[in-house]
């Protein structure tokens, strides 16, 4: 039982999607700390952007780690993950716009776009590492 759990944890940390979510978490921390120097509302907006980006990312991570049935190409699993991520993101956006007031919109969207760009950065870093091999 313990070995199975540690194996699962090993799979989780080795996944590139986990690396993306971890990078996004770190970027959120950095952005909110930077904003806290200037304005408290901006820092809260940066944290909200982080939550809006990281929670759907965690859902995608969980779906991607599910074992694939033999013979199934796994496309339905990928689509389920993406649709769930999209729905969660939209729900979180709506919740933030309705309930979080005051909100610094510029910081919110700036942080959100920056966090989405983390995916491109991780892809670029991974391809560079592959080329070096």
């Amino acid at each position: 039982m313990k070995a199975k759990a540690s194996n699962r944890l090993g799979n989780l940390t080795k996944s590139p999607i986990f690396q993306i979510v971890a990078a996004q978490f770190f970027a959120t921390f950095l952005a909110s700390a930077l904003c806290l120097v200037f304005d408290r509302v901006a820092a809260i907006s940066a944290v909200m952007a982080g939550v809006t980006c990281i929670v759907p990312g965690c859902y995608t991570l969980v779906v991607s780690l599910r074992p694939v049935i033999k013979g199934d190409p796994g496309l339905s699993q990928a689509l389920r993950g993406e649709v769930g991520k999209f729905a969660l993101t939209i729900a979180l956006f709506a919740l933030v716009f309705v309930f979080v007031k005051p909100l610094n919109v510029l910081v919110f969207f700036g942080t959100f776009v920056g966090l989405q760009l983390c995916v491109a950065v991780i892809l670029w870093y991974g391809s560079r590492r592959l080329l070096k091999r």
Partner: protein
Amino acid sequence: MEELILVAGGILMGLGAIGSGVGIGVLGGKYLEGVARQPELQPMLLTQLFIVLALVDAVPIIAVGISLYMIFAL
């Protein structure tokens, strides 16, 4: 003015959806092609598919976010 904001939000969401729809379609087709050619690479390809799907999805998600802001907060 409010009607125009709603129309602008709808156009923003729709155009983003068209782009991502084409992208996800091409991506899914290429993934199936790859799995059919080399089934032993399927787990690696699936992880890569998830990552690139996230990249393709980023633009419409941002568009939907901006349009939701226009609809709810403006």
